[in-house]
């Protein structure tokens, strides 16, 4: 007989697979699945056990135009990745040659956007980047920011911390670079998730020790666009950034009203 604790986890995993685990509870459980093998195994059990209800059903042929749309979407991703890699490599080359003082930090970090790509020379590079662990990706981005900051003459343009907001596939969604002195936060949208017309993504600073959250503002929704917001507090006082799904105008409260979907660790950058 399973213990009450095991039964709770079994039921939680079962509800996750059924689909009745929703909202923040589902988001939290998905985060647990990434780090807890036992919870992951319980989910595998339920996926397998309930699969006849999905697998042994009367099949319906999808319309003929669906597959071409899939391949077109994949090719568009590949083309975008190729262009991003080329732009990032060009930026790096330019910075090496000129001392690289004025290139926006966030442009360089575009190269760490880890979407999988295939069938081209750039794919190999992307595969290499994709296989990097999150921490390594962030560390690499921090190194790049640090390198690019070195020749900057004005302290006001220098980031002292960066953050990459990732989704569950470890794809980079937004890159944030902050300056604690000026309280400026530069945000570049890399691959912002699609929203409905009435929705927005709101950025929050999460304080340590469960001390609550503070709103920073709404995130840019178009890939490639950059926004500058004012930090409500120093990044030193925050544990991490979090992104919630909200109505178009953002949360009407001082806390998220929608699910918290993504987070980004704050990585201090050593400046000379």
């Amino acid at each position: 007989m399973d213990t009450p604790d095991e039964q709770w986890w079994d039921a939680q995993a079962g509800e996750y697979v059924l689909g009745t685990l929703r909202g923040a509870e589902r988001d939290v459980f998905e985060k647990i699945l990434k780090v807890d093998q036992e919870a992951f195994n319980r989910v595998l059990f339920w996926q397998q056990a309930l699969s006849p209800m999905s697998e042994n059903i009367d099949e319906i042929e999808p319309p003929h135009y669906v597959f071409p749309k899939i391949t077109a979407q994949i090719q568009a991703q590949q083309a975008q990745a190729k262009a991003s890699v080329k732009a990032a490599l060009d930026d790096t080359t330019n910075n090496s040659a000129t001392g690289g003082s004025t290139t926006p930090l966030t442009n360089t970090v575009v190269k760490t956007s880890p979407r999988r790509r295939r069938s081209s020379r750039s794919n190999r590079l992307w595969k290499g980047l994709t296989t990097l662990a999150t921490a390594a990706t962030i560390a690499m981005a921090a190194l790049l920011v640090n390198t690019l900051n070195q020749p900057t003459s004005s302290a006001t343009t220098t980031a002292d911390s960066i953050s990459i907001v990732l989704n569950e596939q470890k794809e980079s969604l937004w890159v944030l670079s902050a300056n604690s002195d000026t309280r400026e936060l530069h945000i570049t949208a890399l691959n912002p998730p699609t929203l409905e017309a009435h929705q927005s993504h709101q950025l929050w600073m999460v304080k340590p020790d469960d001390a609550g959250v503070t709103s920073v503002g709404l995130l840019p929704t178009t890939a490639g666009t950059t926004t500058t917001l004012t930090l409500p507090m120093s990044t030193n006082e925050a544990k991490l950034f979090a992104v919630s799904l909200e109505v178009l105008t953002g949360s009407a409260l001082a806390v998220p009203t929608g699910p918290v979907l993504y987070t980004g660790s704050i990585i201090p950058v050593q400046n000379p």
Partner: protein
Amino acid sequence: MTTESAQNSPSTLTKDSSNKADDNLIEWIKASASGDEGAFKKLYDATSPQLFAMLRRLLISDELAEEALQESFVKIWNNASEYQPQNGKARTWLTSITRNHGIDTLRKRNIRERNDLQMDPQDVGEHPGNPMPFALGHENSERLLLCLDQLSESARSCVVRSYCEGFSHEELSDQLQRPIGTIKSWIRRSLLTLKECLNGYA
């Protein structure tokens, strides 16, 4: 039953055929992970009718199901290298990716604002036109059906309809006119009963 006759029984043949089919899926997933578009097309042809049917049942819309199928296969292409055969059947992996995307779509859209989804609280054990929305003939199906039969009609309906049609606790509570706590309790107790039963057949 002798070993020889067991090997030649219909259920064994079905199992062998199912294993062979899954071996093909594994091969195509691995090839897709290496960028083989031909293998990806074979994978799509072999599985999209089942996945599309599942999404239509979940999202109750051809348009949303097509969109979800498209997004799911892009995700399958992007994540093909992450499939681990030791973690379960290839078809179950594909189904899980697609179902999760379908559930996310449900979360984002208020799909349930429809009149034709009304359930009769006096008839909560019935799934419209099909009490058990899956076919028999597979060992796993029969085992699941036997275990579902151990649940009360109401509890079984909650489990089946949440899985197949994506009903949330709140929606089940509204439709069945039962307190949400009762629905949650039915589902969680049902899951534990199911697990115990399924383990008994393992």
